[in-house]
C-alpha cells in the first residue's frame, strides 16, 4: 500500500466521519467519557494503593525487617540479634537504608495496682522512633498527654543491692503507654507500673516504670497493649545485653524493598540473620493489594467494553447506511480491500480521537487531584469516625493522591486498537460480499 493511498484514505475517512457529525460526536463523547473514567479511576486506585502501601509498611512493618532466623516462629525472648551496636553502625553507613529501628519485644504482666494485665513492652530508641517511619513519628502517632522524651531516667545505681529494682523511686524509668491501654486500665501520667516478665535466660524480669506519656498510635496493637520503654532499659530489665529482637528498616522507596532486603542480607555480620522485605513478611498485604488491583481491573474492563461497544455500533451503523455509496465505489473500480481500508481507518480515527480526548481529560483531572489530594473522609460523607479505616491492625485516615500510570494508557490504547479492528470485521466481511449492482439499488 503506498503512502499516498494511505493519505487519501485518511482524507476520505475524515470526510466520512464529518458527514454525519452528530453520530461521530456522539461516538467520540461516549468513548472519551469512558476513557476519562478509566484513566481517572486508575489514577485514583494508584494513589490509593500507594497510600495503603505506605501506611501498611509504616511504623511496625517497615520496608524490611531483620530477625534472628528462628525468631518469628514463636517470638521467643532468647532468639535475638546480637552485637546490635556494631550492626546499627554498619546499617547507618548504607545509602539504601534511610533509617533503622532496633526493637525489643517483651510480653509482660503489668500492674498499676495489684491487678495485673497483659501488655507488650517494647524497648525502642526514644529519639530514633520519632524519625519518619518510626513508631513515634508524627505521621504515625499522636502524643495525647505528657512528653515523648522518655529516654531520660534511671541508670542502675552502682550500689544497688542484688535484689533491688533497676530503676529507683527518685529517678524512675519512664514509659509511654498506648491510649487504649491507658483508658482501659485507667492509667494516668505519673502512675507507677510494675512490669513482670521473663529474661532471655528464663529467670524473672521485674521493674517499675513511671508513665510519662500517653500516645495514640496508628498501630492498633500499640494502642491496645503497648508500653514503650527506652531500648537500653529493656535490655537491662530483660537480660538482653547488646541484643534486640528486631531491626526494622526503612529504605527510600517502599516498592524497592526486595532489593533493600537483599543488599542488607549480604552485608558482613548479617549473613546468618533473616532479612525480609515487607512483601515476604506480610504476604496477606500483597494479596490484598493484588485483589484490589484485580477488582479495579474488572471495573475498567466493564467500562471499556461499554465504550468499545459504542464505537463498534457506530461503525456498523455507518457501514450499513453507506451500502449504496460503497456499491458505487465498487462499480467504479475500487477494490473491496480499499473500501475496507477506509473503514478501518475511520474506526481507528474514531478510536484515537476518543482515546486522546478521554486521556487528556482524565490526566488533567488526575493531575489536579494529585496536587490537592483526595480525602477519604469526603468519600465517607465527612463523618468523624468514618474517616478512619483499619487494615490489619493499622488505622489510617489518609489523603489519596491520584497518580497517572502509563500502564493504563498503554493498555487502553492496545485495547482500543483491537476493538477497532474487530469492529471493522463485520463491515469488512459485509463489504467483501457486496455486489455493486445490488448495492447501488439500496
Amino acid at each position: 500500500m503506498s503512502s499516498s493511498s494511505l493519505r487519501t484514505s485518511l482524507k476520505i475517512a475524515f470526510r466520512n466521519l464529518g458527514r454525519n457529525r452528530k453520530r461521530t460526536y456522539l461516538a467520540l463523547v461516549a468513548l472519551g467519557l469512558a476513557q476519562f473514567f478509566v484513566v481517572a479511576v486508575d489514577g485514583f486506585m494508584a494513589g490509593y494503593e500507594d497510600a495503603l502501601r505506605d501506611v501498611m509498611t509504616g511504623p511496625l512493618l517497615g520496608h524490611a525487617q531483620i530477625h534472628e532466623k528462628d525468631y518469628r516462629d514463636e517470638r521467643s525472648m532468647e532468639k535475638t540479634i546480637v552485637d546490635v551496636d556494631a550492626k546499627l553502625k554498619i546499617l547507618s553507613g548504607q545509602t539504601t537504608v534511610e533509617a533503622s529501628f532496633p526493637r525489643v519485644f517483651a510480653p509482660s504482666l503489668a500492674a498499676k495496682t495489684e491487678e495485673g494485665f497483659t501488655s507488650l513492652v517494647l524497648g525502642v530508641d526514644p529519639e530514633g522512633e520519632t524519625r519518619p517511619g518510626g513508631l513515634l513519628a508524627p505521621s504515625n502517632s499522636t502524643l495525647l498527654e505528657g512528653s515523648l522524651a522518655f529516654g531520660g531516667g534511671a541508670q542502675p545505681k552502682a550500689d544497688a543491692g542484688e535484689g533491688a529494682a533497676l530503676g529507683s523511686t527518685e529517678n524512675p524509668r519512664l514509659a509511654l503507654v498506648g491510649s487504649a491501654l491507658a483508658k482501659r486500665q485507667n492509667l494516668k501520667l505519673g502512675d507507677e507500673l510494675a512490669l513482670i516478665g521473663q529474661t532471655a535466660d528464663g529467670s524473672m524480669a521485674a521493674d517499675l516504670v513511671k508513665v510519662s506519656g500517653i500516645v495514640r498510635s496508628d498501630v492498633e496493637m500499640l494502642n491496645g497493649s503497648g508500653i514503650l520503654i527506652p531500648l537500653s532499659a529493656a535490655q537491662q530489665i530483660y537480660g538482653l545485653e547488646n541484643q534486640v529482637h528486631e531491626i526494622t528498616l526503612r529504605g527510600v522507596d517502599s516498592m524497592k524493598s526486595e532489593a533493600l532486603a537483599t543488599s542488607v542480607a549480604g552485608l558482613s555480620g548479617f549473613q546468618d540473620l533473616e532479612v525480609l522485605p515487607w512483601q515476604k513478611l506480610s504476604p496477606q498485604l500483597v494479596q490484598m493489594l493484588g485483589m484490589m488491583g484485580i477488582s479495579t481491573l474488572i471495573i475498567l474492563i466493564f467500562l471499556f467494553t461499554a465504550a468499545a461497544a459504542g464505537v463498534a455500533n457506530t461503525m456498523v451503523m455507518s457501514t450499513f447506511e453507506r451500502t449504496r455509496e460503497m456499491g458505487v465505489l465498487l462499480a467504479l473500480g475500487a477494490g473491496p480491500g480499499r473500501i475496507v481500508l477506509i473503514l478501518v481507518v475511520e474506526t481507528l480515527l474514531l478510536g484515537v480521537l476518543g482515546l486522546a480526548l478521554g486521556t487528556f481529560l482524565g490526566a488533567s483531572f488526575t493531575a489536579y487531584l494529585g496536587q490537592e489530594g483526595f480525602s477519604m473522609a469526603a468519600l465517607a460523607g465527612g463523618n468523624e469516625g468514618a474517616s478512619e479505616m483499619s487494615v490489619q491492625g493499622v488505622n489510617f485516615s489518609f489523603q489519596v493522591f491520584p497518580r497517572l500510570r502509563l500502564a493504563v494508557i498503554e493498555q487502553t490504547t492496545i485495547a482500543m486498537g483491537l476493538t477497532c479492528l474487530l469492529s471493522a470485521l463485520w463491515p469488512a466481511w459485509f463489504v467483501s460480499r457486496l455486489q455493486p449492482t445490488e448495492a447501488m439499488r439500496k
Partner: protein
Amino acid sequence: MATIRRRQFVLLAATSAVATGVARFWPPGVPLAQAADAPPPIEKVLEFLDDLYRAKTSVARMEMTIVKPSRTRSMTMKSWSRGMSHSLIVLESPARDKGTATLKVDQNLWNYLPKISKTVRIPPSMMLGSWMGSDMTNDDLVREASYAEDFDSSWDGKSQSPPGWKLKMVAKPGKVGLWKRIEMVVNEDATLPLKSMYYDRKDRLARTMYFEEVKELGGRKIPSVMRLVPEDKKGEYTVMKYLDIEFNVDVPESTFSLSRLKRGR
C-alpha cells in the same frame, strides 16, 4: 431359729464392720488386690490417684529443672498447701530469683516479686501462660480437677511399655477445663501412676507426664519425680522433683496471705 438368725446376723455384722474398718483405714500405697488379669475397681483407683499428693496440709521442698535446647535452668522452692484451695510456693534458689513467690487461693493466683516488692494478680488472660518459664502453666497450679469427679473413666486394657494398666478418662460434658481426655498408665496393682497423656479439646496430644523415681516421702510411697514433656516443642521439658514432703503438719491459714509475702516469709 431366732438364735440361729441372730448369730448369723452378728457374724455378718462383725464381718462387715471389720471389712469396712479395713477398707476405711487401709493405709495408702498398700494394694487392695493382687495383680491379676483384671484391674482393680476403678472408683477406688481414681480416688487414690486424686489423693496421692494431697492431704489436709502439706509442706514440701522441690526442685524444678527446665530443659530447653539452648539451656537448662534449675530452681529450688518450698511449698505449703492446705487442701486443694490454698497453696504457696516460694523460690529459694537461684539467688537472683530468691523470694519470688506464687500464691494460690481458690482460683486466684498472685506473683510476688521481691525485686520490686510488688504483688500482682495474674489475670485470666495469662492463665495459660507458662509458670516461671516452665512447661507448667498458671492454670495447672490453679486447677482443682478431680479424676474421680470430673471424668468418665474406664479401663482400657493392659499396657506393654510401661507395663501396667491403661486408664482412659474423658472429661464429663459440661466440665470446664483444658483436657478433653487423659490417658494414664498405672502400675500392675494400680498404686502408682506411671505416665499420663493429656489431650486437648481438639483431641490432639498436648503433653505427656512421666512419673518416676518412686520414693517413700511423708510416709507415702509416691513418684518423687514428674517429668512434663510438651508435645510440640523439641528438646524441651520440665522436671519437678520432690526433695521432701510432710503431710498433715501444722500449716496455719495465715500462711497464705499477700501481706505475709511482703513482710517476708
